[in-house]
């Protein structure tokens, strides 16, 4: 279980709940799903992963997509819609 250096960017409600726009971190998470689980342990995120989408390197991605060294990950809250 090797750790990767990842960048995570936060938007909207997640930005407020994380208290930051972006961070660089070492994580053993192999997928976005595992990464969100890690982050929920650290921040008071109220959004379940079921209502989020995920992007890796500024493209929509699967929750199960393998994360690689240097990836930038964004969890996407429900959009304004309307």
């Amino acid at each position, binding site marked *: 279980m090797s750790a990767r250096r990842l960048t995570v960017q936060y938007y909207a409600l997640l930005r407020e709940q994380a208290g930051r726009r972006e961070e660089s971190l070492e994580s053993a998470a192999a997928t976005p799903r595992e990464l969100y689980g890690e982050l929920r342990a650290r921040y008071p995120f109220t959004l379940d992963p079921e209502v989020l989408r995920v992007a890796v390197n500024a493209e929509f991605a699967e929750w199960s997509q393998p994360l690689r060294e240097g990836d930038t990950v964004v969890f996407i809250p*429900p*959009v*304004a819609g309307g």
Partner: protein
Amino acid sequence: MARFRFTHAAIDPAPLRRELADPACGGFAAFEGWVRDHNEGAAVRHLEYQAFEALAVKEGERILEEARTRFGVPRVLCVHRLGDLAIGEVAVWVGASAPHRHEAFLAARYVIDEVKHRLPIWKKEHYQNGDSGWVNCERCAAPDSAAHPHAHR
């Protein structure tokens, strides 16, 4: 062909429609989203728009290309405002010019519908009573979120 873009300055429709001028086009349809003074019964004081710009611009360009291909509309453009907006300001502008009006209307409608549903853009409403909230997020985060009607992808 940067036809989808964000701006932090007020949107002025006049120069945007001039970008779509085309002597082969007989119809031009435009849509503007304006900041309303209320939403679902609550009085709104101002709005804040935030976007994941790197992804939203790419996805926005894809939407415009889909509109061009699907409806055969040569020129279509969308500009979305970010930051703090006052009541009455233009939040989003869409324009499409085409040989005939039917295609221009369809393209403009398609673009605004897709933009609203597919782009990572968030809207925080600040209410007259001092409350504020990210539209859709707060309800998703509420305990009864399983019952709320909007779809997630």
